[in-house]
């Protein structure tokens, strides 16, 4: 644990190993983007807007669709986890996170936010499946965007822990901090994904559950670190000792 004073850190591992996300939770999670796409489309049909506004609305439709498609793709991957073989290999997390930042920049810009990678001087290697790790970071970033105020920056961080044995990839948002109550409710929701509809976070419940499944498949663990001005969702993975061999 590396939480500093005034911060609270919590692993979300145990409850994530039981069961698959329910159809109800998945269906609910997809309601929000579909409802937004529908509202925007109907408005474009029935109302007259200026060219710039039309362009903005069309952009929102395409980006919302992409976000929803990412979720469906993650769900499919999550359901097939148990009978699939995953190639775990040494990965440079910096490179992977740079790709994620590049991919998410337009989405964040459309929300008047930014996403950036905190660069490291010394490279690290970790053991993971590239596709699953990318999905986890995308999920955390989506979640961070939801909690981030306009014009704020979401930061992807890479840290070495436990004397270099663990590499932590975190996504730090600078929105309102999650209260202990919300944190506890998140924890209990994760134990029963079917109850997601009774509480918040539309963007963190199922996404977090899936991220936990992916981390588990790579012998890793996800968790939350609360700060006074936001939260960091992180995944801890085993470091590769390839570098030390060199």
């Amino acid at each position: 644990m590396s939480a500093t004073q005034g911060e609270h850190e919590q692993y979300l591992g145990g409850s994530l190993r039981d069961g698959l996300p329910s159809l109800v939770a998945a269906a609910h999670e997809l309601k929000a983007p579909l409802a937004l796409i529908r509202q925007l489309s109907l408005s474009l049909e029935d109302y007259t807007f200026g060219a710039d506004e039309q362009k903005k609305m069309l952009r929102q439709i395409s980006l919302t669709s992409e976000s929803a498609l990412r979720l469906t793709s993650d769900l499919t991957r999550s359901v097939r986890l148990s009978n699939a073989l995953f190639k775990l290999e040494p990965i440079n997390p910096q490179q992977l996170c740079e790709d994620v930042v590049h991919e998410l920049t337009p989405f964040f810009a459309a929300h008047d936010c930014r996403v950036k990678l905190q660069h490291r001087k010394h490279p690290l290697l970790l053991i993971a499946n590239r596709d699953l790790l990318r999905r986890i970071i995308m999920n955390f970033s989506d979640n961070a965007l939801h909690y981030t105020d306009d014009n704020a920056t979401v930061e992807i961080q890479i840290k070495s822990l436990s004397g270099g044995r663990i590499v932590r990839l975190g996504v730090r948002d600078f929105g309102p901090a999650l209260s202990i109550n919300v944190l506890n409710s998140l924890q209990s929701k994760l134990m029963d994904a079917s109850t997601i509809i009774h509480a918040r976070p539309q963007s963190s419940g199922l996404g977090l559950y899936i991220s936990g499944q992916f981390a588990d498949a790579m012998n890793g663990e996800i968790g939350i670190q609360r700060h006074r001005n936001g939260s960091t969702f992180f995944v801890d993975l085993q470091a590769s000792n390839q570098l030390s061999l060199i």
Partner: protein
Amino acid sequence: MNDATILVIEDDNWLSQQYSRILSAAGYEVEIASNALAAIELIDEINPDALILDVLLTGSTAFALLHELQSYSDTGSIPIVVCTNLANELKLEDLKPYGVKRILDKTTMVPDDLVVSMRSVLS
């Protein structure tokens, strides 16, 4: 033109922008709050004529806000239209004591429903 000011309480920025487009086109003044705390501050500041309220909000649910609003006589009388994906799970009768006049289902409503609802609750 309407003189009424509507406060939209919705944590999806693009959806709140969408509501604002439609209501502004109908002549309403629109303000947006993305969470319950910001909503309470704005209600004190702008004294809105009506609220459009999402149920699942970042940080707390709309029900905490409804309770808070009912604690004060001035805010307790503001008409509220709940706009939610959970419409099937809510009963208007249960929410009427909290000033909720209508429930709109985000998944089936059309943009004009917002304007129709506002006209209805403000008439």
